[in-house]
């Protein structure tokens, strides 16, 4: 374990309470000797860090707070998620970034790839190379070799050894979490759903910031039980007849909650998220038998992200969610300057049109400047659903 001085950032006193508590929580973890790995993306194999006894944590990337800081260096016309990720790092405002011993990025999009080069000047950054396609014979062996390169990096950086048995244990733990989260969001298959889409998202999003696994599982179980109990008592937070929509597209949460609010304030309800924060991450499990490295690579190669070409798994999952959650329509959120999702919109549009499912795509960034327009678009779309 490298020697780290557990100091808080110089600007700590100027932070709000929630931010302060995030910093203090991470500081306490570090003082207990935890090694922390900051991650950005669903493609990052958290199992590798858990196998090494490390704490993986999602880095701040969903607020416009540090975008001005980022725009001193990065171009303005860049995806807000990339700008925010970098901005939080340079501004020392993200407790998770601040206390990360290692940051792991992956070559999803061009913007992130090049941003990591700059981030590498201020943090220890390891880049996991992804294949660009799920088809053909070459991608799987390539990803396995990349996962093993990540293992080597982690072992060197933290002075640990990752045995296969540790990895298998971590896979099983993570699978248990995936199962429980899936059980949670599948509650919204009920009609009407027992929670709003915003409530669902907040649980999905928040679960990324609970670091004690047994505690996290217990909390999720409690949430599921509470929702079922409230339902049994006749509580109906969503009106019967509210149009049921599935969200798809770029990662949701934080600033982009404005999109979910625009939809739900117009009388519809989000029943499922195909996005990274939702089913894209929790729908499938990692195979628990055979070589764990191969099993991990198979799982991560299967993520239905628009950076893959072609990307059939997104269509499969989206189609299935629409069926299982009895969707009346689909809303896609695309972050400004996200080329892969913006172009894939056309594929999604024709896929859904063939199924007779109404589709709305909304492009946005992290600012509040388009809230009125989002509301008009969302409300008009919902009006067309009858």
């Amino acid at each position, binding site marked *: 374990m490298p020697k780290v001085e557990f100091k808080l950032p110089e600007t700590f006193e100027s932070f709000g309470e929630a931010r302060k508590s995030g910093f203090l929580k991470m500081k306490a973890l570090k003082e207990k000797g935890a090694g922390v790995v900051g991650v950005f993306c669903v493609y990052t194999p958290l199992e590798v860090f858990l196998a090494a006894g490390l704490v993986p944590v999602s880095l701040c990337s969903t607020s416009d707070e540090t975008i001005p800081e980022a725009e001193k260096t990065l171009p303005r016309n860049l995806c807000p998620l990339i700008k925010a990720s970098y901005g939080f790092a340079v501004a020392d405002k993200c407790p998770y970034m601040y206390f990360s011993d290692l940051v792991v990025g992956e070559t999803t999009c061009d913007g992130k790839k090049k941003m990591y080069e700059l981030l590498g000047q201020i943090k220890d950054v390891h880049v996991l190379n992804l294949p660009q396609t799920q088809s053909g014979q070459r991608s799987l062996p390539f990803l396995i070799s990349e996962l093993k390169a990540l293992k080597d990096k982690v072992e060197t950086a933290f002075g640990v050894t990752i045995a296969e048995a540790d990895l298998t244990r971590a896979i099983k733990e993570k699978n248990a979490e995936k199962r429980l989260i899936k059980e949670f969001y599948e509650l919204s298959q009920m009609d009407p759903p027992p929670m709003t889409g915003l409530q669902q998202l907040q649980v999905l999003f928040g679960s990324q910031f609970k670091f004690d696994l047994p505690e996290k599982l217990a909390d999720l179980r409690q949430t599921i039980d509470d929702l079922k109990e409230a339902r049994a008592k006749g509580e109906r937070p969503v009106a019967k007849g509210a149009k049921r929509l599935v969200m798809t597209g770029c990662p949701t949460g934080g600033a982009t909650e404005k999109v979910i609010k625009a939809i739900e304030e117009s009388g519809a309800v989000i029943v499922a998220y195909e996005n990274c924060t939702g089913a894209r991450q929790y729908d499938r499990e990692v195979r628990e038998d055979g070589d764990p490295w191969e099993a991990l690579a198979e799982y991560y190669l299967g993520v239905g992200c628009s950076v893959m070409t072609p990307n059939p798994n997104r269509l499969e999952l989206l189609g299935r969610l629409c069926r299982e959650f009895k969707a009346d329509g689909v809303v896609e959120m695309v972050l400004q300057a996200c080329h892969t999702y913006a172009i894939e919109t056309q594929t999604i549009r024709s896929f859904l049109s063939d199924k007779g499912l109404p589709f709305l795509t909304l*492009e946005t960034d992290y600012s509040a400047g*388009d809230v*009125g*327009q989002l509301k*008009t*678009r969302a409300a*008009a779309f919902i*009006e*067309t659903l009858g």
Partner: protein
Amino acid sequence: MGHQNTLCIGLDCGSSFCKGALGLNGEIVGLASRPTGWDVAGSAALVKAELLKGYDPKESLVRVVATGYGRELIKADKIVTEITCHAKGAELLAPQTRLVLDIGGQDYKAIATLNGQVISFQMNDKCAAGSGRFLEVILKRLEVDLSQLDEFLAAGQAITLNSACVVFAETEIIGLLASGVSRADILGGVVASLAQKIASQAARLDPTGPAALTGGLAQNLGVAKALGQALGLTVRPLLKGPYAGALGAALIALDID
């Protein structure tokens, strides 16, 4: 129209103007409008009062539907987006319309419709290019009144304007004026650029005609012609097109129990 003696009012408060339509016993009996200004609710109330002049609201049922960007600030029985209202209003003004092009003060919308129902729509992003504001700024710079626009368009050739951004376009126009280009030619270019911007948005809807023009520029033959050329469709200018949203809202007010 609706119940006997029900006064059906549609109020459409956009970024520039607050428009109102009054329906009674199956007929549209009144239209009114005034600048929205800073006080949306106040302007809406004044438009409503003007519509109701000569009627006794105490003797009738009054139903109000509000639309437009200021819709949530207006006291109404129901709030509906301007997209749905323009589709209904355009169908009333020009039956069998399949594409509604609504050019508003701060945005523009292309709406594919069938029998007055929205099939799908496209709307501009935060940029003002292609909106009424774009034309307004340029007209002001050229000291041309909107009522004279058709005259200028008929007289000029459309030059190519390179900037779609209203700020840069203004700069470009200052340069064109300095090099002696006529106002008619400049306006031809401005309207062609506006039409191109709207047409590229509408093209995403795979539109079929006939198309109808609504919003503040709906009466403008030159704008309709430029849009028609850009889209390869017939675009009908509508005399009452500025009231399409208010008319649609009044029609929706009919269906309130």
